[in-house]
């Protein structure tokens, strides 16, 4: 949350990324950058291309145009500087994998061979479980945990490799409001304490407003980025969507509404669409 010095290190630079899948343009000339210690929200409705963009950054999808620089270099397949928390993992409650086992896989899960028991490793896992408040269910099977608990274990898994950039794909989508708020607060604290950059995708920006340093707003495959004040404005978003939209602020919450401006207050026309 604290304002970053102008010279903060560029962790991630996305330059003119375009992706088309079977003739359809998913992303078109998307550019933005993320600096150390910043919390960036990647906001867009379903189908706006958030997951595709994250997959391009992770190297799971090849862009048809543009490039991604991580720490100033084109990313290789093996990039330890990025931690990734996927949208959803399907784990059977019967799967014999405890929360602490999943966190431990964050240290050496990519290595071949059988791990030897190591005290140092166990301590690192305990420390990370403590950092995400997951000690209470450290020995439970991951498949039996609630959505919010799983999310925290996955965050610990991603963080234990000491990444400089943490990518999260819709971490709030499966959570109730309270668990979502807890995850957001946790991420904000971690970004601050460890000076890592957080890039989090969500279809709803309001839960992120208190912690978001920058926003990348995706609509129709194109992106606008900057601070919330710079991006979430009538002119910027109307240009992005390609039709007229209006930004309303109600009790500190932001509503983006399509259609011509009505009188101030709640929209009276039932055909108006809240985006």
């Amino acid at each position, binding site marked *: 949350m604290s304002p970053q010095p102008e010279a903060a290190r560029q962790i991630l630079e996305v330059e003119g990324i375009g992706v088309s899948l079977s003739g359809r343009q998913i992303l078109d000339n998307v550019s933005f950058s993320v600096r150390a210690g910043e919390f960036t929200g990647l906001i867009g409705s379903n189908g706006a291309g958030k997951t595709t963009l994250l997959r391009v950054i992770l190297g799971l999808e090849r862009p048809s145009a543009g490039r991604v620089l991580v720490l100033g270099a084109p990313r290789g397949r*093996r990039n330890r500087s990025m931690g*990734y928390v996927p949208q959803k993992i399907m784990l059977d409650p019967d799967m*014999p994998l405890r929360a602490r086992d999943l966190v431990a896989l964050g240290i*050496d899960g990519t290595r071949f*061979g059988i791990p030897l028991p190591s005290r140092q490793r166990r301590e690192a896992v305990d420390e990370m479980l403590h950092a995400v408040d997951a000690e209470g269910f450290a020995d*439970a099977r991951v498949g039996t945990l609630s959505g919010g608990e799983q999310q925290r274990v996955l965050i610990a898994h991603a963080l234990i490799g000491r990444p400089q950039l943490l990518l999260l794909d819709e971490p709030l989508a499966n959570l109730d409001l309270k668990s979502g708020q807890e995850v957001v607060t946790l991420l904000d604290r971690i970004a601050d304490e460890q000076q890592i950059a957080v890039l989090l995708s969500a279809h709803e920006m309001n839960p992120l407003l208190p912690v978001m340093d920058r926003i990348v707003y995706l609509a129709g495959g194109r992106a606008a980025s900057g601070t919330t004040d710079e991006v979430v404005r009538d002119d910027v978003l109307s240009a992005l969507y390609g039709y007229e939209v209006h930004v309303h602020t109600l009790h500190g919450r932001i509503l983006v509404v399509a259609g011509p401006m009505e009188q101030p207050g709640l929209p009276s026309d039932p055909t108006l669409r809240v985006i």
Partner: protein
Amino acid sequence: MRWLFESGFFASHPVHVACLVGSIVAVVSGVVGVFTVMRGQSFAGHSLADVATAGGSGAFLVGISPLFGFVAGGVVGAGAMEAIGVRRARGRDLATGIVLGASIGLAALFLYLSTTESSTTGASQQILFGSIFSTVSSTVPVVAIFSVLCLGIMALVYRPLLLSSVSTDMAAARGVPVRVVALLYMVALALAVGLSSLAIGAILSTALLIGPAAIALRLTKRIGWAMMAASLSGVVAVLAGVLLAYDSYYWSPSHASWPVSFFIVVIVFLGYLATELPFVSTAVTRQRRPATSDASEAHR
């Protein structure tokens, strides 16, 4: 104990070979089976067994040890499934079904030719339902080599495989060569199915692969322990099966031994049922309070 161990059990050479081969196979099946159950690939395991049937019956027809046929068939099948079923689960399902149908057809032809041309009547019984008592001593080293190879692959890919079993994307994002790991695992699975086919027959081989693993997953929440528990319950089932089959010779006046595979499969099945007993299952599953913060889970 005389009533349990019929005379000559401990002195019989076929019994020695059967116990040795059966135990090795049970350990391999237990280790691989835990991953098979965990990854939800029981059906793939069963399909590999069908492909192995074609290989095994082909080997029988040309007069070499069915084990080579089982393993060769399984490995080729694993490669084919992995190659055809790229990416999407639906494609994988379809590819598996197609490979499976073709191989059972081949097996039908080979078994038919074996019975008609060389008038060997035991072909179907031996290939499909196993014949651990007729395993010759010279097969033991081959069983050992395939087992070491299979366990070696599992040890090699253990961590990346575990990571990709949790999430392929997560593993791929961290640089795990997910397709290579999946292929290696399929080869290990093919080896395990081949070995298991030798012990209890191609049709029943999945019982030894899936059953003990399913029992183990009920009993422990740690993967290493699950592998040990699966191996151990497999060994117990095999040894008890061999003993009962040997004893069954004396059960009826006509002195016809019942098949070993029948006993092994029944013991595995009973073991699985036992883990369903209330006091067994609650001991493990009562490890967690019900989820509290998941009210919105139903939305998606």
